[in-house]
């Protein structure tokens, strides 16, 4: 078969190519470029190969930040996902004023900018003027997020739960609303218990939105920066210094561009790896009942 080759067709993909190049490939390649050089000043660079990577991987402060980060993200998921599901299950259905009110209330925290959330909790937790801080003090609980590292850590976690559980709840609610009422009727006729309805109808039907919720919450919490920065500035000590804050200190504070670039690439790969693991695990779980 004679097919006419027309190479002008390549022109059609030029716009896409240009956009992707400027928005993704070039910035990424710049980082890769920095990560293999020692930079002294504009135009003064020295190729150092993988030296930055070995330095970064051996950095104990970074190890600490990574461990802190992983524990934090897992805690966020362990709290927000079940809590979001429970809230979604308890939400009123149908088109009523109650439904609209619930949806608006849930959406409120999502509308507040990150740094404002940090400021709100900073004031909220203060022992002298904050409602939470003053309440703890009145109850005789010694709570101080600026000096006690556990208090600081828990406050950052609670702040995230307050800020983002709504998102999980709204996603799950959307998933639940898409289940045709006939499923519930059928379950009722079968005499299925509430737990069975949840386990065999609602949970499998929510799988798609749960994947999205887990991935979004994981990636977001793994890259958390603004809230702890505003609340504690990473302290006390390094107790709330997460990866992105350490990275910023390195890049902007110490101007270690090469090292920070190598760190960024490793950071990116870690996020990618975790996301892949979560995705695979959730997508396989539903079919686990099969064999």
């Amino acid at each position, binding site marked *: 078969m004679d097919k006419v080759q027309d190479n002008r067709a390549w022109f059609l993909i030029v716009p896409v190519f240009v956009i992707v190049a400027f928005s993704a490939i070039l910035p990424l390649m710049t980082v890769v470029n920095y990560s293999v050089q020692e930079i002294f000043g504009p135009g003064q660079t020295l190729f150092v190969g993988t030296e930055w990577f070995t330095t970064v991987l051996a950095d104990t402060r970074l190890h600490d930040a990574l461990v802190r980060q992983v524990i934090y993200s897992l805690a966020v998921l362990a709290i927000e996902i079940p809590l979001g599901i429970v809230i979604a299950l308890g939400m009123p259905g149908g088109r009523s004023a109650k439904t609209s009110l619930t949806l608006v209330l849930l959406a409120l925290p999502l509308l507040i900018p990150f740094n404002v959330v940090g400021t709100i909790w900073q004031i909220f937790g203060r022992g002298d003027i904050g409602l939470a801080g003053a309440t703890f003090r009145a109850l005789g609980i010694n709570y101080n997020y600026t000096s006690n590292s556990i208090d600081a850590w828990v406050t950052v976690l609670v702040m995230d739960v307050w800020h983002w559980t709504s998102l999980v709840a709204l996603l799950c609610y959307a998933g639940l609303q898409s289940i*045709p009422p006939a*499923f519930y009727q*059928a379950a009722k*006729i079968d005499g299925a218990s509430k737990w069975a309805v949840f386990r*065999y109808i609602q949970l*499998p039907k929510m799988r798609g939105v749960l994947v999205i919720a887990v991935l979004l919450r994981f990636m977001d919490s793994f890259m958390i920066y603004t809230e702890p920065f505003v609340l504690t500035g990473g302290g006390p000590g390094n107790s709330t210094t997460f990866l992105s804050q350490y990275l910023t200190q390195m890049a902007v504070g110490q101007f270690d561009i090469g090292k920070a670039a190598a760190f960024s690439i490793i950071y990116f790969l870690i996020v990618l790896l975790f996301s892949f693991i979560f995705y695979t695990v959730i997508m396989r779980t539903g079919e686990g009942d*099969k064999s």
Partner: protein
Amino acid sequence: MTLTLDGVAKRVGADQHLHPLSLELRPGSFNVLLGRTLAGKTTLMRLMAGLDAPTAGRVFENGKDVTGASVRHRDIAMVYQQFINYPAMTVYDNIASPLRRQGKPADEIDRKVRGTAAMLRIDPYLQRLPAELSGGQQQRCAIARALVKGAGLLLLDEPLVNLDYKLREELRAELREIFSDGKTTVVYATTEPQEALILGGSVTVLHEGRLLQTGPTSEVFHAPLSEECAAVFSDPPMNVVEAILTNDRVALADGTNLPLSAHDRNLPAGPCRVGIRANHLTVLRRSDRLVPIRGRVELSEISGSETYVHLRHGETTLIAREEGVHTHPIGSEIQVYADPDRILVFSTGGQLVAAPHGRRGLLRNIA
């Protein structure tokens, strides 16, 4: 199970979804609920199932009053328009789920699941998830799940409506056989007169929340008690023309005269309405008794291997059936033949006065 509905009605707010009706379903009977969309078929089924409580009237299972009893305590199974299966369970576990709930021993469950699956021809797919099956197979799985339960009352709410034509015919042909175990009382809702005729048994015709007629399917089809009932139970819609009945003929409003036949002889003279089903208005003149009617083709549609010709005749549009696939140019003159021996005679109020067959001697005075 004998299911008895005594004057049940359903009202939601100001809407009367179902007007009071009484119905008795014998054990092992096959009952078709026929009605157009919004006729109240699903409402009635939900009352039968106990998913909803009636706002008036009582429901009896084998003489026991179960009005308002929770669906959990009722002996029923149901199949829906949508293919309802547990999404995360295999076909095997789906079918086994009602038996496991009943606490049956494992070997009995296995035997029943495999037997039912084989009957519905989904036995090769027992280890698959519902989402990995075709639509027809998913519905077979749902039917198997309902069947295996061995409930006294099996409700099917338009189970074939979401399947394509071919699958629908295939499954419909099997259904009668599958349900004929003699113990289960089956209720099958459909909008299609054809489906009701193929499935047989008895039929209950619903229209706008009212029960129009109930009885053996062929009897209701041949002698619908009202014009409304005939309209619901006809596809394409029955032709209805104003007429005057005299002592020697039926004079249609357009001037066509139909000779009297066995069933409409000896009726009191006066105005009436005549119903002619499309299959009794033919393009081919099959006998000399047929009376010609001329008209202009408005539309000619092909359904399966039949052609339905819509023709303009005076003020009305008539629909005639023609065997085989034919094309008639729009606007062309056509002559069709009405069969005077097959017409239905209704009073001016739409009540049946005379129907062919005359088996039940349906002769009444014209109002």
